[in-house]
């Protein structure tokens, strides 16, 4: 992606014009897009749905499903144009995918496929953020928020990192979305959790996950889909894609080991919810580095990612009084920062440029991290206030919160015994 990115940044139109369609690349990217799609309404839905309380399972799943549906719509309407249209600060010219035909190419694949692939990233980003808000945010507020957030936060940040923005591109290495997707979403979730306030029960009564079984299944589906997310970000079926595939798998496994190992040392228990969370932390950590790190790097990135995720949710979280319900910030934000920094440190021989300067690359990574945190915090807050105003307040009333949103908002129950 770095190679591809540089070409994209420098000479987008000329590069595209000269390329011809590759059947192999196109076939892989069709599959990769379907894999990433699975991550949101299946992987994240079950991962989050299993972690929430039994009275809010469907509401939580509904946020992932809703994010995917609304995200897809907004993406083809304006999101893609802002992210990948021409322009410096924001992209323009591709509203409603204008000018894109089945003959248009992005690299060696049809641009329409690239639209679909990138759309799945936009949707999962805002779905990840839902994890911080669950059990109290209004469904209508969240859906409006999701649409606005993709337009105002996700698409611009994507434009700067991948879409040709120059002024706000600091030369960061972010192969598959460590800052663009994960840090961005984690920060957004944290900010909304702060504005919404804590759940009534937070810190007072036991808040137990509905089903660690679903958590495990959800994490496994995320892992599966992540092959499309990371290896697909090469936008080609080649050696870099294969390397990304392998390091993704290694880092996820080490994430499991890292989390469980530290948990064992601290609590003398190896929990399965912890193992599943560790897999996700390992995957988040390797995401920006997946197109440049080797296996040795992936082992360290994943292991530290898992351990850091545990430390974040079990220790560091308690120092803040923010009810980030399902730890979106700690697992995607904190671990995302680690991944971004690690990307500059662990580079495989194949990806190492002769004149590579680690210090200056680290500065680039930190600048991108800083920009993402600042921009995402501020604009997420604005977007939330608009969504809240449009839907008449962003938080459900106390009675609904205590009865659960499944029964009151959706008129359904997760389980009918």
């Amino acid at each position, binding site marked *: 992606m770095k190679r591809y990115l540089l070409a994209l940044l420098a000479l987008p139109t000329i590069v595209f014009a000269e390329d011809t369609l590759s059947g192999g690349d196109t076939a892989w990217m069709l599959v990769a897009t379907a894999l990433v799609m699975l991550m949101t309404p299946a992987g994240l839905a079950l991962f989050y749905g299993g972690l929430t309380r039994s009275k809010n399972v469907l509401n939580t799943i509904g946020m992932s499903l809703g994010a995917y549906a609304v995200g897809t719509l907004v993406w083809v309407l304006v999101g893609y144009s802002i992210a990948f249209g021409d322009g410096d600060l924001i992209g323009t010219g591709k509203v409603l995918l204008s000018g894109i035909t089945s003959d248009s190419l992005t690299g060696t694949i049809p641009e329409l496929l690239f639209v679909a692939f990138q759309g799945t990233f936009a949707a999962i980003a805002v779905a990840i953020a839902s994890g911080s808000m669950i059990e109290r945010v209004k469904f209508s507020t969240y859906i409006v928020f999701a649409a606005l957030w993709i337009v105002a936060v996700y698409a611009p940040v994507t434009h700067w990192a991948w879409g040709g923005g120059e002024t706000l591109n600091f030369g960061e290495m972010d192969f598959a979305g460590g800052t663009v997707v994960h840090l961005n979403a984690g920060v957004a979730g944290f900010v909304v959790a702060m504005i919404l306030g804590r759940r009534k029960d937070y810190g007072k009564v*036991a*808040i*137990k*996950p509905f089903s*660690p079984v679903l958590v495990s299944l959800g994490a496994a589906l995320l892992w599966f889909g992540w092959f499309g997310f990371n290896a697909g970000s090469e936008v080609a079926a080649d050696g870099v894609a294969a390397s990304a595939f392998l390091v993704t798998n290694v880092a996820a496994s080490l994430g499991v080991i890292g989390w469980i190992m530290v*948990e064992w040392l*601290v*609590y003398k*228990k190896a*929990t399965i*919810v*912890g193992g599943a*969370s560790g897999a996700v932390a390992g995957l988040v950590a390797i995401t920006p580095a997946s197109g440049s790190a080797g296996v040795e790097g992936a082992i360290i990135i994943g292991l530290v990612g898992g351990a850091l995720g*545990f430390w974040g*949710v*079990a*220790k560091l979280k308690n120092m803040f009084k923010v009810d980030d319900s399902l*730890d979106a910030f700690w697992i995607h934000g904190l671990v995302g920062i680690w991944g971004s920094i690690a990307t500059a440190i662990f580079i495989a021989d194949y990806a190492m440029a002769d004149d590579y300067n680690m210090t200056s690359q680290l500065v680039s990574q930190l600048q991108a991290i800083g920009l993402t945190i600042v921009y995402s915090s501020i604009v997420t807050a604005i977007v939330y206030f608009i969504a809240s105003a449009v839907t008449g307040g962003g938080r459900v009333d106390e009675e609904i919160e205590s009865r659960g949103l499944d029964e009151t908002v959706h008129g359904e129950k997760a389980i009918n015994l």
Partner: protein
Amino acid sequence: MKRVEAVIKPFKLEDVKDALAEIGIDGMTVSEVKGYGRQKGHSELYRGAEYVVDFLPKIKMEMVISDDMVEQVTSTIVEAARTGKIGDGKIFVSDIEKIIRIRTGETDNEAI
């Protein structure tokens, strides 16, 4: 007539029931209950947050017997339900004033 209520560990239910059947107790009411005594609860751990579960699942079995059976029934329950570990449960014996069998109208000892 006495009522014997025994709160026991759930996995001991079959043993106790079989032992009571052997000494001729052919009816009882069983319910799943929760509670705590000296055993206290256990803790569960999710993402580093530890939750103490105060109430443990137990089985409460109730039967009404004639006065002369009390000693035999209680000693049978004690023998069958005992593991020797904390949390084995308790037995309560109380008086019953009247029994009526709904189907026949029989009363007291005839209705046991």
